């Protein structure tokens, strides 16, 4: 479904690389977690897929089509994107925010209204209660639900998420993670999700790619990463949640 071949990105004419020779693929209906410290190149990798950044070398295919050969705006309209800073349009109502991409795709008004109703129901914000409000009148969790609804509104097959739940409080975060996982399964979405939270990656992702300093150290299922880490760093970051779970266990059963 999505395939990266020897993708590299340099912001300084190939002196240093933010992304070093990355190749991986994501299957249809799969959720790939892209994890690493800040500055490791995971967001840059994500942005190259919908051409918010252009790769310096290598190529990226979606459905066997080279994204560099597609019109970037048309490409982005067909890929859902959930932003780290949520990035709702403050001057649009919730309905208008969700309708943004279908409007760009010239859907007719009835179709857009029906789709807004459907998708806002799906994220638990009924249009009759929330449609006319402004983003500033919603809580952080509700805003990110709208962010998810906006990304899904035009029925994309592929969704890119950049630390989508990072800004939320822990309870809301868990709630949204579970909900999104349900939606993703239901709609069989192909998702790449950037995160720095290993627990989030382990619980949500079908496979996880661990990045460090622009390089992908290992790609595998959560189980593979835990059982056979290929790298010291991978071992370290997958053990962290385990250690915390052990500590909790000790607290509960001393």
């Amino acid at each position, binding site marked *: 479904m999505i395939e990266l071949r020897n993708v590299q990105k340099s912001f300084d004419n190939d002196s240093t690389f933010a992304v070093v020779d990355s190749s991986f693929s994501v299957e249809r209906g799969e959720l790939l977690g892209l994890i690493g410290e800040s500055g490791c190149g995971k967001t840059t990798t994500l942005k190259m897929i*919908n051409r*918010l950044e252009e790769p310096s070398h290598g190529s990226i295919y979606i459905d066997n089509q080279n994204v560099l050969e597609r019109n*970037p*705006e*048309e*490409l*982005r*309209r*067909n890929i859902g*994107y959930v*932003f780290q*800073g*949520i*990035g*709702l*349009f*403050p*001057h649009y*109502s919730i309905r208008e925010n969700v309708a*943004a*991409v279908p409007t*760009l795709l010239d859907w007719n008004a009835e179709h857009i209204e029906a789709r807004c109703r459907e998708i806002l129901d799906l994220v638990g914000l009924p249009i009759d209660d929330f449609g*006319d*409000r*402004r983003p*500033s*009148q919603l809580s952080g969790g509700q805003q990110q639900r709208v962010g998810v609804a*906006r990304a899904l509104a035009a029925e994309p097959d592929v969704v890119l998420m950049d630390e989508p739940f990072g800004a939320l409080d822990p309870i809301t975060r868990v709630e949204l993670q579970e909900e999104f996982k349900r939606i993703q399964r239901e709609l069989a979405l192909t998702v790449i999700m950037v995160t720095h939270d290993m627990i989030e990656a382990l619980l949500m992702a079908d496979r996880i790619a661990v990045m460090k300093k622009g390089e992908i150290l290992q790609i595998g299922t959560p189980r593979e990463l835990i059982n056979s880490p290929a790298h010291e760093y991978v071992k370290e970051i997958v053990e962290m949640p385990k250690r915390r779970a052990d500590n909790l266990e000790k607290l509960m059963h001393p």
Partner: protein
Amino acid sequence: MNDNLREQLLLLPEYFQGHLVLTLVALAIGIAISIPLGIWASQSQMVKRPLLTTVSIIQTFPSVAILALVVALLGGQIGLVPAIIALVLYCMLPIVRNTVTGLETVSDDVVEAARGIGMSSRQILVKVRLPLALPIIIAGIRTAAVWTVGLATLSTLVGATSFGNYIFTGLQTRNLVSVTVGSLAAAILAVTLDSIIGGLQWLSENQNGKEAVLKFKKAWVLVITVILVGVSFSVYSLLNKPAADFIVGGKGFTEQYIIAGLLTAELEEAGFKIDQRLGLGTEVIYQATANGMVDIYLEYSGTVWANRMNETSNPGRQTVLTKVGDFVQENDGMYNVGPLGFQNLYALAMRKDRAAELGIETIDDMIPIANTLVAAGDLEFFGRPEWITLRDTYNIDFAEKLTFDTALMYTAVDRGQVDIITAYTSDGRIDAYNLKIIADPRNSLLPYDGMLIASASAAKNPLFLEIVGGLVNRISDETMREANRIVDVNGGSITDAVNYLRGMIR
């Protein structure tokens, strides 16, 4: 209601219309130019710096200077066009600056999101950045609107009608009612525009909930409609105003207003339709008449002799008059109608009691003590060649040479703040303030015969020439001084003085 106030209020519709058209047309053009420039600047650092510097520099120019420069650049054209150009130049800074600031303050997250969902650069600008910058842009327009209303009063100086007509005429004819009416009217217009635009700004900042959005859109549409209808109506009526047969011009002081009133009354009586352009500067009115934008006005022989012919000698009253008459015809293609009969000379004047105290009768008497005296001149005198001639002829200079607006100059000598002023011999205020004209036995000061100069096109009309020619040599020094006195001292209107003159001529 007193007569003076009623007379002023009768002028209100015409001045209001002029002022409104100037303000709104200038503002509309200013917005149409400045917002795109601001957008351009926000996209390119190469453009931003030079552009913001340029509009800031324009702003630092004195507004009167901008007006004069625009008139000069347009080759002496006066009226709406130069006034609007100057106002547009002046109102650009706050709009350009606020457009740039407004666009720059839109959050990067929101712009990134707009790109990420597939908006083109143009869509990002139109659908996201401009709407979010709107409150700040409107704030800039609001500032520009208030400035423009204020500055539009100066348009009077280049012959465009505005509330400035009240203010400048009032200042020169010591009519405080007129000054007050003009200032209040401009202030009310400024406050009204400010609150209309302020309301829009408030609505654009508080677009919460559907009702408010709808109200905002309704208010927006309503205000824009009202403004558009108002402007198009005003412009239409200005354009559709029956064209005047002749335009009578005048500089900005009492005697000029009176003679312009006299010319207008005489020509209208003969059935001509007349427009007036009053309060024009010396340079502007000469150019405008040469271009045919003014058809007739009162000039002074000495002014042309010194300012335009650059002569410094004084060959005598008659020679100057003849040579100046030839000059305006041959050099600038205008028509010399002839002298009216009175002179308006520059003369040194003192309070009678002060002159007696110091024993001064002539400039010669002043020589030994001149360096202890404080002199006040009008805006021009100490910059004119005749001051040099006077200084060199008598070999005198004063302790201080101050420059005043004419009306304030007379007040200053009356209060004893200055010893000597450069008065005008036909000025009614000489008697009113009990001043003594200091004799000039060595004839250093130039003769200033009042003479009518007409445009080439107007001079082709025989009836016109017959009427204005009929005024030649009909107004004596005493008659003119009395007419000036009626306005400056007795507080009468220009119409009163015109009626007096017409009575004397008959």
